[in-house]
């Protein structure tokens, strides 16, 4: 399968703290790749390096390379606006803007210069449908997004992300703040979205990783310990530490 994103010898330092240690990892196109590991293992940090959200953290130093379709995203010529249009992100806490549902979804397209009302209407409808939210909100598109339930808000954030037609979607523990039914809905949604998009998801929930991910990477204190097909990682881990973690001996 094609490789969409490739990290090569990626190191990240927060000040003097070595948060990612020489990570090599390929993310395959049209698949779901899960990053698992205990808190503080670097899985979220790694995810954020993939669309340069670490740029806004102070005293961060990154060495090595991350390529998207063979282009180094840390090259000084990179326009982060275009990068983030291609690589969208959904966060742990649903974070809709304090605007209407419609304006939330239209936010991204507007950044990228789409002003035509008809065109925006289409994008909003299409994105909400793709995020399996349209039927629930069709009659109240112009009411505040803050009135939605947590699960709906998270699907709205996915819709907002889809509205700019990304190629990759990064999700940072997207269901950890949600109830089981909302979680299930989002998992089903991701399974469907991978037909069109490349998906990378951080999760602390190993069942979730085994349910939805095609590939799984296990992180421990900044190191990428093991990476492979999800089935292999869970059924016959090569590394003792992976085995200890997935059998619940620590973490």
């Amino acid at each position, binding site marked *: 399968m094609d490789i969409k994103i490739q990290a090569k010898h990626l190191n990240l330092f927060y000040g003097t703290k070595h948060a990612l240690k020489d990570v090599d990892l390929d993310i395959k196109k049209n698949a779901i790749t899960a990053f698992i590991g205990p808190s503080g293992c670097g899985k979220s940090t790694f995810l954020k390096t993939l*669309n340069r*959200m670490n740029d*806004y953290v102070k005293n961060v130093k990154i060495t090595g390379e991350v390529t998207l379709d063979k282009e180094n995203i840390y090259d000084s010529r990179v326009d*982060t*606006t*275009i*990068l*983030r*249009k291609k690589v*969208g*992100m959904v*966060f742990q*806490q649903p*974070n*809709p*803007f*304090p*605007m209407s549902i419609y304006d939330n979804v239209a*936010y*991204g397209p507007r*950044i*990228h210069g789409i002003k035509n009302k008809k065109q925006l209407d289409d994008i909003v409808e299409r994105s909400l449908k793709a995020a399996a939210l349209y039927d629930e909100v069709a009659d109240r598109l112009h*009411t*505040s997004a*803050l*009135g939605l339930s947590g699960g709906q808000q998270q699907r709205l*954030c996915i819709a*907002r*992300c889809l509205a*700019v037609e990304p190629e990759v979607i990064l999700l940072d523990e997207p269901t950890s703040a949600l109830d089981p039914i909302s979680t299930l809905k989002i998992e089903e949604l991701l399974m469907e979205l991978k037909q069109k998009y490349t998906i990378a998801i951080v999760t602390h929930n190993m069942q979730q990783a085994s349910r939805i991910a095609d590939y799984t990477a296990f992180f421990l204190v900044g190191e990428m310990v093991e990476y492979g097909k999800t089935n292999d990682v869970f059924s016959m881990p090569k590394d003792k530490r992976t085995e200890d973690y997935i059998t619940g001996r620590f973490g």
Partner: protein
Amino acid sequence: MENSLFNKKSRISDKILNILIQFSTLISVSLLVVIIGYICIRGIPCFRFDYLINTTSILKNTVGILPNIINTIYIILLTLIIAGPIGIGGAIYLNEYATNKKIVEIISFTTEVLAGIPSIIYGLFGMLFFGNLFNLSYSILTGALTLSIMVLPIISRNTQVALEAVPKSYREAALGIGATKWYMIRTVLLPSAIPGVLTGVILAMGRIVAESAALLFTAGSVSALPINIFSHIFSSGGTLTIQLYLEMAKAHYEVAFVIALVLIIIVLALNFIAKWISQKFDVNKVG
């Protein structure tokens, strides 16, 4: 039955404290009521609609505060036009762009000190700096420039607090979807911060309306109607508070109380508007 739930102890210290707290509340509320009441009682009987539409003139034998009302409006608007963009812009810079936290801290501290300086000192500085050095002499512009320096801390401090209160997740969401920093500030941060920013602006307006010491030697005390809407800013103009001071100095208590009444109404109105605006523009409320 020592263990019984019904063994309620009466705690004397609690009761005393309770009474003291109620008493303090009563004093602060009644002070406000007494002051406003006193001004109403003294002001309303003297109040004549004439005052609001006339100029004080010995020739025409009229008494009125229309020029002072107009001057007050001029000073408010002009000060806000000058201090608003600078204060809000400065706060945005300090909060969102400035990278050297040490310098930001020093600036924030200086701003707070600035807010505590007695206003007569601003008057002295304004008179010498804007009035003499820039040759604006006694004018509404000199007054407005002086007050701008005075209210700048109020506006910028409130804006900063409002910006700080915007959840980090909004910033992440906007930047994560490809917004540039300025686009994010314009479309997400500022709309969320508007109630706080407006609170600062309205507090500043209150300060401007109430100011007299800093205006006496900058805007002066002339009480004449504008001849030209624009050039009026270059002429001396006394606000309501200045006129109040002058009337008291001449022992014209009738007019003084009428002015006091008008001032109180303006201040109350500003406060109600502030409340209304911050509720109306609160994007974080649902519905």
